């Protein structure tokens, strides 16, 4: 019993004197909970649910279209933005201004007549961003159907009251709201994209998160070299800090590419074998390689800076781990950006993980090409350069 007591006391003493470890252990959950609570504040509190913005394009200008526009705008928590035309609508969606858009092509009356005769011509077109989470998509679609049904009910009422609109008779035949056909299209980078599945939507986030974790082995390897006296020997051989740190890139870049290949292979082959949805590798492979390369460079440079700033391998591991979690939480990797409050959504831009995520979405969800990912690639490359130069600047050339 005495031995056990002595062991317990020793453990408490050792733990209480690890000030850096304790600081991280206490601060990390606080920071993490703060970020996650802020990110999920609106998603988990119905009273604070934010408004979903959508684009509206009415090219029919008929009575039904106007009525539908009014009915949809009257739905709760929907905010309408007007689109000037089909091209503008698609461009604004591709610029991530909204996740949804509704357009009504000319000739709605004819399509209603067709529907009355059992035709399946779509009355309206719902444009969806492939990045929109399934729940948000279903919710918006339900809102649109409700608006359609309310217009239909209005027609029927007018008909009953003896003031029928010319389309009312046609619409009356459509007593089942489900027969009001909505043409749902996913807005790709250049053309319509395939309907995304859960795997397609989740893989990019985990890909980005996993690749950034290269920070940990990299930082600990640099610190091990320092502790073992290797850096001292290399300094004596006049090896410059720039060369020393730059030499870390190829090995860890290769590691990141293998990670990427494994994660994609799991999505494409393993998940379907286990009954899940298959990951489809849409978009440009070169674009994906560019995003992965820029992400890898950003993660490696960040790891080098952590290694240079940390005093020990333990400190580097905790610092790197916490930084990854915080960047992931802010960057929309753990919580979709859509469900975050507006201020948090704006804050995602500070995390390089959000840029990488956007780049992966451009390729894997929107089927984009090299040109589509250039902004994200350049952003990540800039981040990588800044981190690398900071790491070389803080690298201790001589002990002061």
């Amino acid at each position, binding site marked *: 019993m005495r031995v056990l007591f002595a062991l317990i006391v020793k453990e408490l003493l050792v733990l209480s004197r690890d000030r850096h470890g304790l600081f991280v252990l206490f601060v990390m959950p606080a920071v993490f909970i703060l970020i996650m609570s802020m990110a999920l504040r609106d998603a988990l509190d119905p009273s604070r649910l934010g408004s979903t913005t959508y684009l509206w394009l009415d090219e029919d200008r008929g009575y039904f279209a106007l009525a539908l526009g009014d009915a949809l705008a009257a739905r709760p928590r929907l905010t309408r933005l007007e689109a000037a035309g089909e091209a503008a609508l698609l461009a604004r969606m591709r610029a991530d201004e909204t996740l949804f858009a509704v357009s009504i092509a000319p000739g709605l009356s004819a399509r209603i007549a067709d529907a009355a005769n059992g035709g399946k011509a779509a009355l309206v077109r719902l444009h969806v961003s492939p990045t929109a989470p399934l729940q948000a998509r279903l919710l918006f679609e339900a809102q649109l159907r409700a608006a359609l049904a309310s217009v239909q009910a209005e027609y029927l009422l007018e008909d009953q009251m003896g003031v029928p609109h010319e389309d009312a008779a046609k619409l009356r035949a459509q007593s089942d709201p489900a027969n009001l056909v909505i043409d749902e299209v996913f807005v790709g980078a250049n053309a319509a994209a395939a309907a995304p599945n859960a795997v397609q939507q989740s893989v990019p986030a985990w890909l980005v998160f996993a690749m950034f974790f290269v920070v940990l082995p990299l930082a600990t390897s640099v610190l091990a*070299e320092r*502790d*073992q*006296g*290797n850096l001292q020997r*290399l*300094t*004596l*051989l006049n090896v410059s800090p720039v060369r020393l740190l730059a030499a870390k890139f190829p090995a860890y870049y290769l590691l990141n590419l293998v990670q990427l290949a494994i994660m994609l292979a799991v999505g494409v082959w393993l998940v379907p074998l286990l009954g899940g949805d298959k990951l489809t590798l849409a978009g440009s492979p070169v674009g994906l390689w560019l995003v992965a390369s820029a992400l890898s460079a950003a993660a490696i440079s960040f790891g080098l800076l952590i290694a240079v700033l940390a005093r020990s391998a333990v400190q580097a591991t905790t610092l790197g781990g916490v930084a990854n979690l915080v960047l992931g939480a802010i960057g929309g990797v753990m919580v979709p950006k859509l469900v975050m409050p507006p201020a948090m959504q704006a804050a995602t831009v500070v995390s390089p993980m959000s840029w990488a995520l956007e780049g992966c979405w451009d390729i894997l969800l929107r089927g984009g090409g090299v040109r589509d990912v250039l902004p994200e690639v350049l952003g990540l490359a800039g981040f990588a350069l800044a981190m690398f130069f900071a790491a070389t600047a803080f690298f201790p050339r001589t002990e*002061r």
Partner: protein
Amino acid sequence: MGELYTSTVPKLPNLIEISHVGKRYRGAERDAVEDVSLNIGQGEIFGLLGPNGAGKTTLISILLGLVRKDRGSVRIDGHDMDRSLPQIRRLCGLAPQDLGFYPMLSVVENLRFFGAAGGLSGAALAQRVDFAVDTAQLDEHRRKHARVLSGGLKRRLNLALSLLHAPKILVLDEPTVGVDPQSRAFILDVIGRLRREQGLTVVYTSHYMEEVQQICDRVAIVDRGRVLTEGSMQELLGAPAAEGCRDLEDLFLRLTHHRLRD
């Protein structure tokens, strides 16, 4: 210069000239090295003796440009440290106390890597690797990972690495710590042989008095960052301050006192 004993002028031409060097680490209460002046001749084996925390490692780190001095000047082979640090570093080989190699690489991989990092390639690299392996008698361990080597073999690899670039000055920081008597004797023999055959200048720190007495031409005893005395073994033991001292250990304890150190 020591306050108790002033050495005679060295007969050998000076390769290392340290003049009034001082260093205080950030946040420290006192200087790690305080007004140290030393001359070390070409081909000399110079011992730095001192208790823990005396400033030996700081002094050799300053000598190699690994720690920035606050005051004074260092000239090596005619090069001023403040102006020609890369040239000075090229002249020096270091066997650090912390060993300084990659445990996951084999003996020969470590040698090839550090050789290449220092600018050697092709036949020159192969030749220097072979020389280092032969000198440290590591031939039968060439393919072994450094992490599985015994303490003595690790020290020999450390020594081999310091010889790769054919340095003019070899700095050995406690090179025999934790090794068996056979390995210690071997390392001391190698150091002596390198000096004899190649005219290498050696700066040697150790806690082992008999070791220092055995191989060093001249010794400096340092404590609290200052040189207390300096000279050849005969000069040190023949000085008035050493009266009654049987050997270097007696003199060392008299000068640095018996009080336990941090």
